[in-house]
């Protein structure tokens, strides 16, 4: 069963980053799963495709950790949807993940461009 393998690998690869992207997206306001996926794609200039098979496990995981909360609500289009919103704990988590991310980016660029580092 190859597809299953693939999903599992991708979740593993994206895990930390995807969680951060979801939390970041929810910072602009409560949103349903479909909307979150679309927003990430749009904001990344269509570069990041979030698979549904990763998105929902991630959302449920975040909810279990208490970083997001969900309610069934009516959308503007008049459709019932499960809307996720950021909790205060989630906000804190977002900040710490962003910190870690910029450290990681700094570190990686340091490695990639050694000339700019300590001379």
């Amino acid at each position: 069963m190859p597809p299953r393998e693939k999903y599992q690998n991708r979740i593993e690869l994206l895990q930390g980053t995807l969680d951060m992207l979801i939390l970041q997206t929810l910072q602009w306001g409560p949103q349903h799963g479909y909307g979150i996926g679309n927003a990430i794609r749009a904001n990344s200039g269509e570069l990041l495709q979030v698979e549904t098979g990763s998105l929902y496990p991630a959302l449920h995981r975040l909810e279990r950790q208490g970083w997001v909360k969900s309610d069934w609500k009516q959308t503007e289009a008049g459709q019932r949807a499960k809307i996720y919103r950021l909790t205060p704990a989630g906000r804190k988590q977002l900040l710490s993940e962003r910190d870690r991310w910029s450290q990681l980016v700094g570190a990686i660029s340091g490695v990639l461009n050694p000339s700019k580092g300590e001379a």
Partner: protein
Amino acid sequence: MFPWWRRDQRERDLDEELSSHLDMAARNHEERGEEHGSARSHARRELGNLGLIKEATRVSWGGIWRERILQDLRYALRSMRRNPGFSAVAVSTMMLGIGSTTAVFSLVKAALFSPEPYRDPGRLLVLKQIVLGDRVNTSAAEFLDFQRRSRVFEDAAGYESEEFDLTGTREPERVSGVRVTSSLFRTLGVAPLAGHGFSAAQDFAGGAREAVVSEAFARTYFGNPQSAIGRTIRLNERGYQITGVMPAAFVFPASKKSNEQPPPSLWLPMAFSKDELGDRAASYDISFIGRLKRGVSLADAQRDVMRVSREFQREMPEVYRGDWNTRAFVEPLGAEVAARRKPALILLSAGVALVLLIACVNLCNLLLARAGAREREMAARTALGASAGRLAVQAIVETVTLTVAGGLLGCSLAWTAVTASTKLAALEAILPANITLDGKALLFGLLLSLATGMVCGLAPLSVAWQRGPGESLKWSGRTATAARESNRLRSMLVVFEAALSVLLLIGSALLIRSFVAVLATPPGFDAHGVTIVRTSFNRQRYPEAQRRYAAQREIVNRLQAIPGVAQVALTTHLPLADSRTIGFVVKGRDPNEYHWADNANVDGAYFSALRIPLQQGRTFRESDANGLPVAIVNATMARQFWPAGDAVGKQFLWGGNSNPFTIIGVAGDVHLEALDLTPKPTIYMDAYQSRQTDAVFVLRASHTEAAKLGAEARKLIWSVDPGLPVFETASMQSIVDRSLAARRFTMFVLAAFAVLALSLAAIGLYGVLAYMVVQRTRELGVRLALGADPISLLIATVAGGMRLAGLGLVLGLGAAALLVNGMSRLLFGVRPLDPASFAAATAVLLVAALCAAAIPALRAAHIDPIAALRCE
């Protein structure tokens, strides 16, 4: 969020969420101009595999293992139902293994280690002294000094067991009672059920004569505890007023031997007399029991009592002579009994463990066989994507369900067995009242069934893993060499079982041989046809010895007149029932050199009535009664002190008697204490010179039945004095039997274990061979078709079985040779490496193995080649 048990709700929630996602995506596509149908299928494609998304999301819910275990449990129950025969065998193996062993262990533990019915018994200590190398209690004065001077006890009490004649109620009776200090009930932490205990003033003579009685006593004589309070009873001809009734569970002192007299039924004030307090080292009659202060260790207590003992020696050198080497020590209450019974308990526990182990191995074997049959199923599931871990968990849940079900049934079986056995009269002599199932044994049994399930569940998998799914799927089930690894593992288990059975067989063979040896030990007397009647002539009733002697002679004469009575004799102590130790000094040797000897006071007819041979000299005669003190010693004593063989005529000093005792005869050795203990030096004194008030009449019948003699004798004794208490009539043989009860019990239990182990091992061997024959049906069929001799197939199969049994036998014999020394303390008359026991165990195992192998071997020889070849 939903709690984990609302999984279905959460599942619905996820469905809805995903379908709302689809709706939104479809609408989005429609908004971009796609038509309804294609927009929907587009959205569906984008979403991907719905089932996998759900699966991945479910994992993120956590607690997935819970879900899976429940699933596995359902699966396990379903598969149990599918194979009712297999399940029944597996569950009942476990049930019998756990049930019988838990029950027996509880009984053994209760028989050997009944818990003391006191508050916090772990802090109760007894104090003993060693004087001249002998363990003794304390004298009254010493008791008071220890109580006053020691600093480690919260409370301490003294007591002395005594027997009393209870008169004025119905027939005169003998009751066992205890003189106790007022602190006793407080020290033990047990309060009277009704009324109250004693006051400190009653510790010394002159206090009120009161009694605290047992619940059973109050019930027997006064109907109920409340109505006993305030009543007066007559003990040794004196009135005592009952002030308290102890609870039914209270027994003090707890009996040391299972074959001793009934537990005490009353407690009286200590009432130390002046005489008693004056004589510091004459007798050590007062037992000391103390409750340790919290946080004080046994070692601290030991140091403290030793300090007090040294103080005595410093302050009173004239009493505590240096060469007496007096020391004091403490030990936990019951330690002495526990130490004596420990070897038997350890042995039986080992037996329990072995039987359980064999039952578990058998079950493992059974499960392995089934795993072999199910290997293709497992392989198929692996190929379909089940992970190894998941399969392992499932296999374990399946076997654990089986074993735990067996374990639970076993526990209820044990419960029934224990309850039933308390009602068995045969066990009454050995088992204390109100036994319950041992909690620890029960827990152990359940944990073990759990562990067995886990191990047995994994074992077959390891075989499957080694092979890999491809290979398992490849075989069509026709190949004759199928499941070789599994067979090897199963064969190893059978070897192991056989080895364990050999251990148990040898252990029980040794115990049986010891028992036979004990039975064959000449007790030194002939119990056959002898009836005994116990009575007592207390000093209140018979203040002068001469009056007692006269009554005793009169009773002897009347008993002699009973038709069918050949001989009547009188003694104070009976062999194998009660013993007394006295200290003496040999005349003409160092007067400070004390020696110890067992003692009984008997009349002239005693030796011939019990057929104890007189080796030298003569027995007591009527004229001795008014003469100088005379004594008869046993052969051991004569040999030890007068090796030249000239004991007769020699003298020794005993007690306060200023006149030395002259030895007039040497009698054969008699086992006074126990059949399996070497006789000690023994001194017989003339009953008609003795101050002892206990009297046992010994009647040797010429032909009449013993039971009838007892009733007759009782009547005749009362015809001389209707006030005399007759508290036991029994055959001498029953007294001998009682002294062997514990040994017989241990032997029977271990032998039962051995039989159980042997049958389990035989079943295991049978199972493996039968399975192999079934597996090889086709091969055997081909060989028969090609002209093989059925007899040679039969022999080959039997040989295969015997090889396994033989290997187990060798291992078992080796292990036994290493282990038997551990049980040497339980053996009598046999060496641990007894060739006969080892040979017997070997023979029994081989015969059992032969029987187990015969059935599959016959089946192998009777295979119909046509049918075997056609069936595939």
